[in-house]
């Protein structure tokens, strides 16, 4: 019998490394050369089906530009099950920034978080500044997954998300694991605000 799991995935990385483009490619299989900074698209979901027919639904949080002046809210990291930290292979400085984000994740996020370091823009191979060896070595030292992608061509995009899905602990539904309550529909444990008034509880509105 196939099972469905839901996980919160957060994206991190310097501005303009292609975080949103990566998600757009993964979720909609689209690419836009002149994409503006993230507007109106900071909450997407996409499902990956694994070999045993179980499905992993990613609830993907984009930074919405709040990373630009180091103003990401603690809410962003809260209950994140996995993170994709993106750098641009044509910009050495962006790998440095990625290291900073990884330290921030280790400080703020749940210790069990699965982190993937992702070198984007392999379509710009001619302008490469960050070697595969350097990034891979760093990822190994820190115990991170690592891959290179091109949101533009689609190369490696599906693969990195599938690899994360495989790495996530599928032993229990995320909502059942302490400290990792999922906020997806159907997985809520708290009260539902959208519920029609009076739908729950049959008592008279009057208390006396």
């Amino acid at each position, binding site marked *: 019998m196939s099972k469905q799991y839901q996980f919160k995935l957060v994206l991190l990385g310097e501005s303009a490394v292609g975080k949103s483009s990566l998600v*757009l490619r993964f979720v909609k299989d689209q690419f836009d050369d002149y994409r503006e900074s993230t507007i109106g698209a*900071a909450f997407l979901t996409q499902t990956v089906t694994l070999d045993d027919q179980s499905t992993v639904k990613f609830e993907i949080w984009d930074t919405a530009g709040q990373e630009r002046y180091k103003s990401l809210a603690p809410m962003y990291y809260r209950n994140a099950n996995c993170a994709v930290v993106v750098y641009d292979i044509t910009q050495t400085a962006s790998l440095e920034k990625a290291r900073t984000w990884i330290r921030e994740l280790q400080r703020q996020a749940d210790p069990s978080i699965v982190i993937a370091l992702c070198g984007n823009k392999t379509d710009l191979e001619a302008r490469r500044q960050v070697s595969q060896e350097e990034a891979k070595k760093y990822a190994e030292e820190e115990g991170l997954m690592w891959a290179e992608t091109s949101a533009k061509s689609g190369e490696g995009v599906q693969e990195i998300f599938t690899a994360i899905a495989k790495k996530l602990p599928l032993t229990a539904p995320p909502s059942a694991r302490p400290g990792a309550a999922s906020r997806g529909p159907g997985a809520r444990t708290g009260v539902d605000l959208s519920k029609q008034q009076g739908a729950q509880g049959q*008592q*008279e509105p009057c208390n*006396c």
Partner: protein
Amino acid sequence: MDEEYDVIVLGTGLTECILSGLLSVEGKKVLHMDRNDYYGGDSASLNLTQLYRKFRPDQAPPTELGRDRDYAIDLVPKFIIASGELTKILVHTEVTRYLEFKQIAGSFVYRDGKISKVPSTEMEAVKSSLMGLFEKRRAKKFFEFLQNWKDEDPATHQGINLDRDNMKTVYEKFGLEPGTQDFIGHAMALYLDDDYITKPARPTYDRIILYTSSMARYGKSPYIYPLYGLGELPQSFARLSAIYGGTYMLDKPIDEIVTDADGKFVGVRSGDETVKAKQIIGDPSYFGAGKEAEGGKMRVVEEGKVVRAICLLKHPIPGTEDSDSCQIIIPQNQVNRRNDIYVAMVSSTHNVCAKDIYVAIVSTIVETDKPELEIAPGLNLLGPIHDKFVSISPIYTPTSTGKEDDIFITRSYDATSHFETVVEDVQDVFKRVTGNDLVLKKRDVEVQT
């Protein structure tokens, strides 16, 4: 910072963040700044390090309290009324997708030296010690009158005109005892003082209906509360703003509000950078609150003070049936005051502190020059207090509408136990800034490509 914005917002308290979110959704170009390195301003929830930095800068948090990151201590004790205006904004803006809510387990009222549960079901009402048998019958008639009231059907009015008759007349019609009036006016209509009794009954009617419909919604109390503390609320609206293009800068010193020769707003200076915008919104602390006017204009005035004591307990509050969260109202008459004393308690169930810790905030409007003594009746209900952080906060209100100078200032967080007045402030500022009433539309959440 060399771009020009439609609106600059200063301070990331809940009021400012809701405004920032709503204005961004409307298509305004918003720059949102805060001098602190955390979100929330005066409505933040702090971890232990931040709490100690604020209250006891020379002291490190004791390790026995547990992990720093397990704490989110609210600075302002407020709960969300389940059927109230904030809930409507949360649902309409869909920021609920970032939040998870739990009920507050119980609502209690202090009477004759002890606390009793505000009944949430008919069964509880029958057993309640708040009223005697005959008084219960009278109260039942009173509540039936309110529930059955229809504006267009005079037969339901029983000779009462809600817009003309005052609440005293209504109480007298049903023969309700002063203790019952206290309970209704303070624990249900949530008035802080008794001024409402001599005013037309309509607003009190509205408040009681809001209370009872909120109570009926989830069952245990009229209140809900966001997991990880109230500080999640401003963060969620800040995210909404950012998604619609709002720019966020924390940890940004604000050195000057720059105006032109006519006193009209021009921009904000931080260090040697000045960023320009058409309008500015901000909390009172960015507009000279607590300082003498330096030749310039007095932009905010103090309306009063609130004393708040954040108490860390290692047990639930006695007499609350071991509730993991509750509100206790001490009506002013019960302790010979003009204003009620409130106790608001949350615990690890709401992910705001370590296991087996309970965080209770006792608060009231300051009436004397010894504010800490004024909250003693509340502190005395708590049992042994492990640690206590007391603050006295002035309540500021703006001196002008902002129409002349494009400077729009929000109000400080008041002593009420909920967010209804915060939403009123949001609606008021929104109207002054945009010229339009705030109309809540369901927004489109599909990705724009």
